[in-house]
């Protein structure tokens, strides 16, 4: 925890910093990426789920460290880029780096254990993730990608619901305090 982050942590919050085993921190993102890559090929409708994003949001919120959050996002994003077809390395990396950073920043200030908070934060960061990707794809790569707000909002709600459920499952992987 940095000095900057520590200043915003009260005593009870500092005690709420979650710790995970290293293999959890490695395998869960990897599983999410593999799910994102392979499962939609079998069940296309599951392609609407953004599991790498949800995992990034969860670890960033729970770690409550901006640096840890941005590195988690960068790692997951670059891995996702590397497995994507015709996707330059760094696009998802940048987006998820920013998502991890801001999610950790939010986790420093509010209680993220509540399900409603998690639902709202997941919905917001999904929308933020999609919008930022659209900006980068349009600005940096010159791709003409339409940004469908309604579709994004619906998918954001879907991912938020799935995310809250996923977060409950991942809470069980935390190390006991």
């Amino acid at each position, binding site marked *: 925890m*940095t*000095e*900057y*982050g520590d200043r915003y942590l009260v005593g009870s919050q500092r005690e709420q910093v979650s710790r995970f085993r290293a293999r959890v921190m490695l395998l869960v993102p990897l599983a999410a990426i593999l799910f994102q890559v392979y499962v939609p090929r079998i069940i296309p409708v599951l392609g609407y789920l953004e599991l790498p994003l949800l995992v990034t949001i969860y670890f960033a919120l729970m770690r409550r460290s*901006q*640096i840890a959050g*941005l*590195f988690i996002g*960068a790692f997951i994003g*670059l891995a996702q880029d590397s497995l994507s077809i015709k996707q*330059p*390395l*760094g*696009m998802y*990396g*940048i987006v998820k*780096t*920013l998502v991890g*950073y801001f999610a950790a920043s939010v986790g420093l200030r509010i209680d993220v254990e509540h399900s409603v908070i998690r639902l709202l934060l997941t919905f917001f960061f999904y929308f933020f993730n999609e919008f930022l990707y659209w900006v980068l794809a349009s600005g*940096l*790569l*010159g791709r003409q990608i339409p940004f469908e707000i309604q579709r994004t909002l619906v998918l954001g709600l879907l991912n938020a619901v799935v995310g809250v459920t996923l977060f409950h499952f991942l809470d069980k992987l935390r190390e006991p305090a």
Partner: protein
Amino acid sequence: MDTFLNRYRNITVLLLVIFAQLVLIAVQVRNDRDVRMVRVWSVTAITPLARVLETVRGGTSGFFRNYILMHDAREDNRRLQADLDRLKMENQFLKSEISTADRAKALVAFQQRTQSRTLAARVIAAGAGANSRVVFVDRGSAAGVEKGMPVVTPDGIVGKVIAAYPTASEVMLITDPEFAAGVVSQKNHVVGTLKGQGQSTCKVDYVPSEEKVEAGEMFFTSGDDRIFPKGFPVGVVRVVRPSSPYQEVLVEPSGLERGLEAVLIVLEGVHQAIPEVPPANAPVYLGTPPPAAPGEQAAQPAGPAGTDADKLLQKYRQIGAAENHTFGEGAPGSKPPDFNIKVPPPGAGGSDAETRRRGDAASPPAQVSQPAATKPPSIPNPADGTKTGVAVSPRRRVAASQTASQDPQRQ
């Protein structure tokens, strides 16, 4: 510094990670022109900065360069101004030298052409009075100059010697109010008396109102004054005002038109005929014409009479001379001369006779009446500038005038 980094460590790390991934993207992606984005971004990011830096650098260096140049320019300007002044003076001097040389050549040519025995002299001083119309020349009694001798230039009479000193002479110009000379008009031979007025023009007195004098015609010396030999140009009539009993005629002296530097003192005058046409301009030096290009006719030399008609007349004379044909003598029906033969262009050399004929054809009648072949060879004396030849003394002018009037060539 440590405090700064600690305080902004998170955002710094974020920016570094973002930047690294941007570079990663840029290295991979190519634009539609197959140029890597990293290159496009680098150039796009660097170019404005480089442009600003170049502008600042160019402006700064230009400012200092201009300042240094301006610093030197002042000195250069002063030096160039001095050079310009010096060159102007040199140019003026050379122009003066050329003018002097032209006058000298004209003087020598006139001296060789005229039958009078003359002595070249230079004007060395003017009279002391403000309205003085008197000059001093550098030849005096030691050179044979006597009081009363006329002074002329190739353009016309200048004045007369009123005092002869051993080394210099005093000459009264024709514009002096006390000057008088007998003159006669060219066209109608109206006789009058030329008088100075103290101005740039002279007056011809005693011209009866019934006599016809036209503006623009020439007056020549009549020889009646027994000072100036007959036939020397005096001037051009500028104003003719009818009056009674004598009309007022103003003449612009031709001898003073080009200034007064060198003159000829007539030691022994010879009367000559009044020319029927105005005298041509004084001979001046002309260079040889440029060589003719292949297929072109050689340039015709410009002369006193250089009109197309003169050139044609000259050409026909050459053709006639080449074929031994005398124009006007052939009987009707006889073979005419071949006008298509090639004759050498004028000025391209030839026999002395041809050259003389060409010179005769190109000269006005006044000069035709005095061909070099018809007068004894006159050789300028380099010692005193005089020229020997057939001449009469002032005391024998009347006889010479009669002799001149009996010469058919002069009529």
